[in-house]
């Protein structure tokens, strides 16, 4: 365990000069971001600043107008589906709205990536893996054979996490995982991510509005504003900067409450 890799200095995600636009609206322009191996990086920014679009570009769902993106050392822009398969096995993604397959039960949802990449596992092992992933994500076992439409919003988030963790990924993308969770659940969620990250050498790309999560688990925080990443650093250092949005964000009443906690 805890093998230090020779390439630990090379970033696991490298975004250079990214530009994204929808018609006339420019969402990103000349955006740069490095994510280091093994860190939990928080991504913050006002609603509509393009956090979800940034994530979609990194995972190859959105073709950027310009710029290069490398994930796990491989170029992501303009790749064919087949080429990208190897990388897809090494990451897990939790979408903002869960994006569970509505015609499958929760456990079957978790088994989808397993069946796709490891079809030779027996169905018993498959069911066992799905069961412990479900339980690890904080869902009761009975939720296993429920359909997504029968779950609450928070339970859907957890089911999405269970699916994202199905392949024990190296890289985890989480789009607002704690939004819509009760505070106790959100804290447990944070702890779960933290402990998994420690044990599995996980790198986590965490989009969140939850200041408590930021303080509790993020190694560094990237701030999205003015179409770019204006700063990436530890919260302590971000607090020293005098950008108005950063000040308001971390030094507002909620920010101070979270800092005190």
């Amino acid at each position, binding site marked *: 365990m805890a093998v230090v890799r020779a390439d630990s200095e090379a970033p696991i995600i490298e975004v250079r000069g990214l530009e994204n636009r929808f018609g006339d609206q420019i969402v990103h322009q000349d955006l740069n971001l490095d994510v280091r191996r093994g860190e939990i990086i928080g991504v913050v920014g006002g609603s509509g600043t393009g956090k979800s679009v940034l994530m979609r570009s990194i995972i190859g769902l959105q073709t950027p107008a310009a710029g290069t993106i490398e994930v796990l050392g491989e170029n992501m822009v303009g790749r064919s589906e087949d080429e990208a398969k190897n990388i897809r096995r090494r990451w897990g993604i939790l979408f903002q709205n869960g994006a569970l397959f509505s015609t499958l039960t929760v456990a079957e949802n978790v088994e989808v990536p397993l069946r796709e990449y490891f079809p030779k596992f027996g169905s018993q092992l498959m*069911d066992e893996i799905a069961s412990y992933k479900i339980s690890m994500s904080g869902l009761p076992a*009975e939720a296993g054979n429920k359909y997504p439409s029968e779950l609450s919003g928070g339970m859907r988030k957890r089911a999405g996490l269970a699916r994202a963790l199905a392949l024990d990924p190296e890289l985890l993308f989480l789009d607002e995982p704690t939004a819509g969770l009760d505070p106790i659940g959100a804290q447990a969620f944070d702890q779960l991510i933290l402990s998994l990250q420690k044990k599995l050498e996980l790198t986590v790309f965490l989009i969140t509005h939850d200041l408590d999560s930021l303080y509790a688990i993020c190694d560094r925080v990237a701030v999205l504003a003015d179409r770019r990443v204006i700063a990436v650093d530890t919260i302590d250092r971000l607090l020293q900067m005098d950008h108005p949005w950063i000040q308001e964000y971390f030094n507002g009443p909620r920010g101070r409450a979270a800092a005190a906690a």
Partner: protein
Amino acid sequence: MAATLASPDRLGGNIFSPAGALTIVRAGSVARELENTPDPLTIDLSRVERMDTVGAWLVHRSVRDRGARVTGASPELQELLRQVAQADHPAPVRPEGERGAVAELGAWTIESGRTLVGLLGFFGATLIGFLNLARHPKRFRYNAVVQRFDVVGVRALGIIGLMSFLIGIVIGQQGAVQLQQFGAEVYTINLIGRITVRELGPLMTAIMVAGRSGSAFAAQIGTMKITEEVDAMRTIGVSPVEALVIPRLIASVVMMPLLAFWAMLLSLVGGGLFCWISLEIPPLTYVQRLAEVVPATDLWVGLIKAPVFGFIIALAGCFQGMLVANDAEQVGLKTTAAVVQSIFLVIILDAVFAIFFSSIGWI
């Protein structure tokens, strides 16, 4: 990645000693090797460099089921094993059991009955909607209705016209082949005129509209149900019946007779073209003869049926759309159901109309 060793130890047990990475990539083969190592089993983790939760699960499972002993685990590995053990709550995977054939038949019968009753209830709800609109005419959505006119009517002109034109030719050709045997090919005009105006015009148009618009109604409303748009409307105080159902009903009731008339016309043109080219009956004679043999009541029969068909199609489409709940698959199922149901009802009604019109003497 070094080879895995399974060797007997001094106490007569077996030591399973994987090396390198014990991760999901190797889980299949490791599981098999563990199975093939007989009890009593000792798992030696001292040579493992990397382990993920799947690897930990395989170890945990052997400890749980076979009482295997684990040695040489570093604190991190122990922690991971503990975490996996904590999460060991078997969860049911597949939905609740399948039903037997008889139960399936029973469920289907009940479901069909419910659907029919539901359709009647929905019919009632739309009538109430119409009454409410009559009392508050300001709430009527002109824009929505006009937009539906365009989608249901104007955009269907091309395909319905082409279909009818071809049907006219086919009827003429098939009729002529048979009637020529009696030297009565001039009666082909009777055949074309009466069958297209009275029956095929409205019926084929209804089938086309059911496939084009009825299905679209079900899919649109069904998708809106899934995304909770319909619920949002209700809570804001907008009645889904007024906003979604009534514009579609009106559009389909108004457009069906127009489309049916258009279909009749193009069928006659197609048939006329065939008569002209193949039977050498000049267009003028064709038109004169049509006027003699096709009674005005035929046209009325066609044009009275059409709006009723339109109503049924829109009603079934919207009703099935409203029935969608839960998941995306339902949208597909209900869209299919809408088309099947509306065509089925249209054909039954057509038979009822046939009996009705002949009994009032419009033969």
